[in-house]
């Protein structure tokens, strides 16, 4: 089979096609399909337990997708994992940086995990810290950072190898309002400046902007994928939260989930 011209300008940053996954007899993803276009901020909306983290684990190849196909910038995650993972940056839901190392040391470690060392890694670390407005804290231990600062370092880390797709799994959980805004603004600016495709998983409606691409995931099934206006039109709702409730048939407040 011929690979569909990876990195071509029309190739989606992320393409998930017919992916199912179960743990034992429990089906957690059911024939899920979605796309994240290049240079687009896509929001993956779903309640806790919707399958967001499982989808991320499949995209990052922590689990192997048994059915369906996942491609990052045209590279199949299962058949071309090296090329696919080279183009992927990730921020997982739980903090995954070493608290005993400095910011720069964490970034250099991550660079090494992508085969980048020496002066190149140091320059990239400095650039990445500047991107998240943390360049003056390079020698600080991660342990001394606030939750929002640590999250920004994780974003900097995920940019070290210059990916084309950035996955963020509920990156604002546990952050105060100021930190949330800071993190969101930084990521949105990266999308605009760097033509980065972003998949932002959340259950918070106020993190969705009118220009975003939206994917609604509920009980393992993708119920909607498209723009915010299309979401409102399809569900005949006036707000995103109402649209979500109409689509999923839930009545509970999503923010409280």
């Amino acid at each position, binding site marked *: 089979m011929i690979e569909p011209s990876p990195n071509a300008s029309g190739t989606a940053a992320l393409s998930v096609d017919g992916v199912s996954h179960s743990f034992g007899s429990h089906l957690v993803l059911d024939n899920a399909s979605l796309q994240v276009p290049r240079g687009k901020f896509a929001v993956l909306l779903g309640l806790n337990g919707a399958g967001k983290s499982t989808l991320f684990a499949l995209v990052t190849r922590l*689990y192997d997708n048994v059915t369906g196909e996942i491609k990052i910038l045209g590279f199949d995650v299962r058949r071309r994992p*090296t090329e696919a993972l080279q183009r992927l940056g990730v921020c997982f839901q739980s903090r*995954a940086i070493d608290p005993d190392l400095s910011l720069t040391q964490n970034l250099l*470690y991550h660079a090494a*995990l992508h085969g980048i060392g020496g002066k190149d890694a140091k320059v990239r670390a400095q650039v990445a810290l500047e991107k998240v407005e943390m*360049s003056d804290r390079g020698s600080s231990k991660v342990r001394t950072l606030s939750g929002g600062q640590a999250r920004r370092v994780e974003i900097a880390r995920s940019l070290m190898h210059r990916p084309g797709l950035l996955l963020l799994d509920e990156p604002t959980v546990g952050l105060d309002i100021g930190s949330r805004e800071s993190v969101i603004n930084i990521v949105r600016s990266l999308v605009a400046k760097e033509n980065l495709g972003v998949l932002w998983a959340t259950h918070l409606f106020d993190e969705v902007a009118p220009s975003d691409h939206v994917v609604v995931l509920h009980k393992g099934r993708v119920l909607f994928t498209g723009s915010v206006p299309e979401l409102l039109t399809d569900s005949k709702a006036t707000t995103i939260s109402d649209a979500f409730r109409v689509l999923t048939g839930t009545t509970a407040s999503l923010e409280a989930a």
Partner: protein
Amino acid sequence: MGAAATTTSAPILDETAHSALTTGNYWACFKGIVWREVLRFLHQTERFFSALVRPLVWLFIFAAGFRNVLGVSIIPPYETYVLYEEYVTPGLVGMILLFNAMQSSLSMVYDRETGTMRTLLVSPFPRWFLLLSKLLGGVAVALLQVFAFLAVAYFWNIQPPPITELKLFTAFEAPAVLSPVIGSVTEPIVYAFVHVPAALQPYMGYITIIPALVVAGLMLGSLALFMSSVIKQLENFAGVMNFVIFPMFFASSALYPLWRIRENSPLLYEICRFNPFSYCIELIRFGFYGYVDVVSLIIVSLCAIAFLGAAVYAYNPSKGLIGRRGGPGAGA
């Protein structure tokens, strides 16, 4: 707050930079993983001191107390009677390797529970390479601990003798159940293959022990890595430590020569001989005296390959045990 985000024009997205991974990339990755392991260890001074104190307590108290209780006859590689402290030192070096491996395994279970292991596993490098690099990082940390211990032991008058020649040593006694089939070879064969320059002779034991430490460290690290994949929770690990560390350590030649065990229990003797840790100890013991114990080297190497293979299988996302339970990043 740091400088504005626009202070540099370097693009983040650089697709043209991506190509097949080169040898240089592999080397950078390997160096980075080992560097992090060593850095983490150096930052954890308590871990360093506890790793050092444990064998020293055994050396200064246990070995001194048992000096007159446990007699050690002249057995290879010793060419004369030795004090019990001298006999037990390679066993205590093995203990450092064993505890360090289990400590690494413990931290991997913790990393898996908290999710930090995912950072390692989403690297584009093959998983076997990542796991092997991490193992070698653990071995590097173990080497630091071992040489700190040997430095203290040096001032306790436990030093390798001057080594004039490097020698191959082989002696194999078939397990009792197999001896009717394959016979029993017990006569040792010694073959000198390298003459050591005079200037190096007093220190040669500290050099020849290194390959033995690396191979033994890899075997124990691989075993611990495999264990970390089959252990579901951190709490379960303590029990497994008791069922692995203590039986492995005590049912080996670390504290007493196996012929002494055979005198009391032939069954326990056979168990000790099936314990791969016994061969780690002997590999280290012979290495300290300038010998390559061929049988131990073969057994330890084969066990290392088998355990590493099992660990890589367990961490394989499509086949392994981890994925069936909810994945290596089960923290979130």
